[in-house]
C-alpha cells in the first residue's frame, strides 16, 4: 500500500474496477483507447446516458455508438472532504460534478483540478481518462483553459 492510498487517493492498482453491464460494454471497450463513445437512438436522433440497451424515450433498440466531442460544462458540483470508501474518488478534497456534455447528456464525473474548491457551476470542462488496472479507463472531467 502506498502512502497516497493511505490518504485516500487510489493508485491504479487499488482503484475499484467499475462493473461492466452488457449495455455498457461498448463504452468500456472504447475507453481502452481513451475514446469517448455515447449511445444514440437512431430513430430519435438523440444521445442518451446511461446506456440501457434501448432508448429511454421510445424504448427502441436501434442503438448506435458514436464518438463524442469530449467537451462539456459543469451543471452542479460538490466537494468531497472524504472518500466514501477506499478505491473510489480521488485524494480529498476533490470535486464531483454532474457534467452536461455537448451531445446533450449528463454524466457524473470527478473533476481533476488543482483546487477542488475552485470548481464552479458553468465551468467548461473536457473529458480526460484515468487508467484502470484491467486496461480500461475511467472518464474524468478536466477544467478547460480559461479563454485567452
Amino acid at each position: 500500500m502506498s502512502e497516497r492510498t493511505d490518504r485516500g487517493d487510489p493508485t491504479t492498482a487499488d482503484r475499484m474496477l467499475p462493473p461492466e453491464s452488457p449495455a455498457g460494454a461498448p463504452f468500456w471497450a472504447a475507453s481502452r483507447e481513451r475514446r469517448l463513445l455515447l449511445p444514440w437512438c437512431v430513430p430519435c436522433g438523440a444521445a442518451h446516458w446511461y446506456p440501457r440497451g434501448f432508448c429511454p424515450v421510445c424504448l427502441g433498440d436501434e442503438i448506435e455508438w458514436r464518438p463524442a466531442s469530449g467537451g462539456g460544462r459543469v451543471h452542479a458540483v460538490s466537494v468531497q472532504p472524504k472518500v466514501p470508501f477506499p478505491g473510489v474518488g480521488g485524494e480529498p478534497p476533490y470535486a464531483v460534478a454532474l457534467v452536461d456534455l455537448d451531445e446533450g447528456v449528463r454524466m457524473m464525473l470527478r473533476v481533476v483540478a488543482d483546487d477542488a474548491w475552485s470548481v464552479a457551476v458553468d465551468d467548461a470542462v473536457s473529458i480526460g481518462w484515468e487508467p484502470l488496472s484491467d486496461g480500461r479507463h475511467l472518464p474524468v472531467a478536466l477544467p478547460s483553459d480559461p479563454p485567452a
Partner: protein
Amino acid sequence: MSAHPLRAATAVVGVADAADPSGMLDGTVTELEARMIREALDDAGLTLADVDGLAINNGAGWAASLEAAERLGLAPRWTDSTQTGGSSFEIHVQHAAAAIALGLAEVVVVVYASTPRSSHKRGGGGFRSRALGGVTPALEWDLPHGLRLPMGAYALAASRHVHEFGTTPEQLASIAVQTREWAAMNPRARLRDPITVEDVLASPVEASPLHKLDCCLVTDGAGAVVLTSAERAADLAKPPVYVLGAGTCHTHASITSMPDLTTTGGVVSGREAFRIAGLGPGDVDVVELYDSFTITVLLALEDLGFCAKGEGGAFVADGPLRPGGALPANTNGGGLAYTHPGQYGIFLLVEAARQLRGEAGDRQVPGAEVAVAHGSGGVLSAMSTVVLGSEATR
C-alpha cells in the same frame, strides 16, 4: 343496491409475451422488459407517453419501480413494487384497478422478465440473473467517481439551487436552527441544545455546500400507524385523523438522472394530495417535511407550494418553521435533531397525527386541524404527500 365502485371501472387493453422453444431468449432482462412494454403498448394503440403508473416486483438494486422507471424514462404518479413471488402480478392488477378507478393513474404498465435458463447456460447466476449480473447503473456509472452518498447527491441539488436562485448556506442553515428549537421541547430528541446559523456553518463540510449540521442524524428508531375506515374509526378510542388526500411521484433513482435538480416529484405528489383533499397550502396548520438534509426541506416547501420556486431561501430566513411561526414544521425535532433511523417517513405520520389530536404537549401547535406529512425516498427520488385532518375537516 349500488355497484361496487371497482366493478367494470377498468379493463386490460394491451398484452405481450415472449418465449422460445429453446427455452432461452436473446437480450438482457431489462431489454426484455422494454420490449414487452413496447409491444403491449403497440397492442393497445398507446405510447409510453400515455403511461402514468408502473408496477414491477423485482429489481437489480434496492427499489424495483424506481430503477425500472428511470431506465424507461418514466416519472409515474402511481407506483407499485409489491413483491409476493408468483402472484405479484395479480396483486399489481388489483392495486392498479383501484388506483385507476379512483383517478390516481390512467394507464398502468405491469411488467416482468427473467432469463434463468440462458443465464445458467452462460455460467451465470441462474435465477439471480434478474439482478443484471449484479451490475446496477449506480455501481457502473456513479460510484467510481467517489460521490459520498447520500449527502453528496443532496449537495449537488443544493449546488444547483445556490447557482440558479442565489440561495445561501445561511438560509439552508436556518432550517436546522428552527428545527432544533422544536427538538428542545421534545424530551426524546437526540439533539436538544439550541444552535445558531454560525454553529451550522462552523460544523465540518460533509459535501459542499452541506455541513454536518445540515445533515440528519443516524439513530435507531421505529414507528407504526394503523388505518381503518372512517366509519370504523368513529367508534375507536382516539379522535380520528382522516386521510384527506395522498399523492406520489418518483422521478429518478440516481441523482445523475434527476430531470431538474431544483424540482422534485413533490410538485406532482403535493398537487395530487391537495387536489384530492380539496385543500391548498394555505389551509395547512402544521407540516412534517422529510428532513434528511436542509435542502430536502427547502425543496419541499417550494414544490408543495408553500412558497414559489426559487424563493425557499428567503422564505425560511424569516423563521416561519419555528415554534410560533407561520408554518410550524418538523415539530418533533425532525430527522435533523429528533431521530433518523435510515428511513424516517413513519415519524412524519406519527407526529402529524399527534398534532391533530392535540397530544403534542409543549410543542402542540394551537388549533391544528390540517397537517401535511411529506416523505422523500432515495436521493430526492420518490416523493409522497399525505394530507391529514381532524374531525373538523371531515
